């Protein structure tokens, strides 16, 4: 990709075959369907727009409360509230396309066939990539989920790859496993073009007026700066164990954080929770990223390595 402005460092990155104008993508679930926060935070800011996970059918989501703040973290139990695949294809994708944006579409389904069906429906649409959300912690079936089972991961990814040829397929991993590199390897074995790490950590809170969890589903997903060290370790370990690129996610709140993920082995990153604190932050992060590179004499992200030699 060419430089945006003369004299400014080139922030573009490649995640495998996918070129992004900058390494900062929106994390699924933290930016709606890409235009919901416009014009406060226009989707054009992001190198890639990952949309809220859609499922084959619409989902109402979980009862309130759905949020609790923890120390430097956020617990959420939204319950995959989404409009379902058809309205997504009929309304959300065209709205983005009208702005010249091809989203990275996060999908989730109940079985490999469900994933494959969604993937083939999306194969005809202007989308940049698919992101498979296998990693919702705490599903109704007591903690068990696809993303903890290497066999299921291979099967789902292979099914999606068979159905989707319009772009790369990313697989989003849960940190709630004994060895995340084994799941990453399964994704690669299934044919994934990249893995994204991490989804939320399994967490909980207690409401001291009742002595019980505030959440209807008891546990919830922990995100935000609190989890960044866990995410960095995951990205580092995965990037040294599989050949496919890694997209880093978890707690990013500054340009320094982005650089830490790139140094740990990520090809790009996603920001989620911190955008709730300050929707103007993504733009500021990119400015600071450019300034950091310039200070160290790097003309582009690809020259980052030289700053550390």
């Amino acid at each position, binding site marked *: 990709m060419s430089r945006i402005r003369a004299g400014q460092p080139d922030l573009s990155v490649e995640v495998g075959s996918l070129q992004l104008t900058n390494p900062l993508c929106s994390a699924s679930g933290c930016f*709606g369907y890409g235009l919901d926060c*416009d*014009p406060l935070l226009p989707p054009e800011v992001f190198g890639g727009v990952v949309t809220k996970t859609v499922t084959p059918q619409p989902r109402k*989501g979980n009862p*309130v409360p759905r949020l609790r703040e923890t120390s430097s973290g956020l617990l959420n139990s939204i319950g*995959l*509230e989404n409009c379902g695949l058809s309205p997504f294809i009929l309304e959300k994708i065209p709205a983005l396309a009208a702005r010249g944006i091809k989203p990275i579409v996060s999908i989730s389904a109940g079985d490999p066939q469900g994933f494959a069906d969604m993937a083939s429906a999306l194969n005809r649409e202007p989308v940049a990539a698919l992101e498979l959300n296998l990693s919702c912690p705490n599903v109704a079936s007591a903690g068990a989920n696809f993303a903890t089972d290497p066999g299921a991961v291979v099967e789902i990814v292979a099914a999606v790859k068979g159905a989707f040829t319009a772009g790369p397929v990313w697989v989003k991993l849960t940190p709630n496993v004994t060895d995340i590199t084994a799941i990453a390897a399964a994704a690669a074995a299934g044919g994934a073009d990249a893995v994204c790490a991490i989804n939320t950590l399994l967490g909980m809170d207690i409401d001291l007026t*009742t002595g019980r969890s505030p959440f209807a589903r008891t546990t919830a*997903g922990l995100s935000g700066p609190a989890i960044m060290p866990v995410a960095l370790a995951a990205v580092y370990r995965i990037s040294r164990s599989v050949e496919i690129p890694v997209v880093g996610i978890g707690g990013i709140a500054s340009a320094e954080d982005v650089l830490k993920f790139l140094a740990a082995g990520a090809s790009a990153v996603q920001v989620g929770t911190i955008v709730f*604190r300050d929707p103007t932050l993504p733009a500021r992060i990119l400015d600071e990223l450019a300034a950091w590179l310039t200070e160290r004499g790097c003309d582009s992200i690809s020259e980052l390595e030289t700053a550390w030699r």
Partner: protein
Amino acid sequence: MRASLTANYRRGRVISCQPDGDLYFDLELSVEQETPAQPGQFYLVAAEESLDESLDPLLKRPLSILTSTNDRLGFLFKVVGRGTRALARLDEGDGLDLLGPLGNPFTIDAEPQPLLVGGGVGVPPLIFLSQQLSAAGIAHRVVFAFGTAGDIPKWLLQGMENKVEICTLDGTCGFHGNPVDYLAAEQDRAPARIQACGPGGMLAALRGLRKPGDEIELSLEEHMACGVGICRGCAVPVKDGDDWRYATICREGPVFPDDVLHHGELEAPLTGPGSACRCGEENNE
């Protein structure tokens, strides 16, 4: 739902932050390029630039707009936890990050006659509403409830004393009891536009007072993250044809016409732990 956000991200500077009564703080700010705000709208508020020094607390806190003029913003808040404790410490000149104005306002209309009912931290938007109604020459009633006389933010209510009908739960000032009991006693009340903000229990009970010709607008509360409808954290069930769906309080509310709300399976409190429809098989996130 509005097509796009009119909210802005902006900086404010503290003009004053003073205790008012035993529980509340009055916070007055000067802001750059203030967007005109209406009663019922709110801001997300946090100490300025704290992201560079501290990521805990992580999120902004929602506060209803109490006053809004060209370059001034006023809030009234109660200290309940870490975020509001930090706000209470603000000194003159300290900076704030502000996102807003957010959400949809109360209706301003003379017919039926507005009856404002506020409890605790639900009072600030109704003070603002009362002032706007008065400015528009619209006759209205104001009923405010507090726990005890000492809680009443007296400084703030200066000039409104004659207008406000006060209830205290312990009877130390005005009517002894909650505003629902107070109003329930009025057998021959004329049809009113009941505009209410306060604890979920109060709001739910107010609905029981409905008489023919009444219109009810309720301002709801829930923990918030984004304030702009993208996290889906502040959900409330609303009618959706024959079905229902979750609306976001921050974007589609906080003020809802009572008849839009889906009360089907709801227990008494409108929102809050254990209140909304616990409908089955959804996953997290």
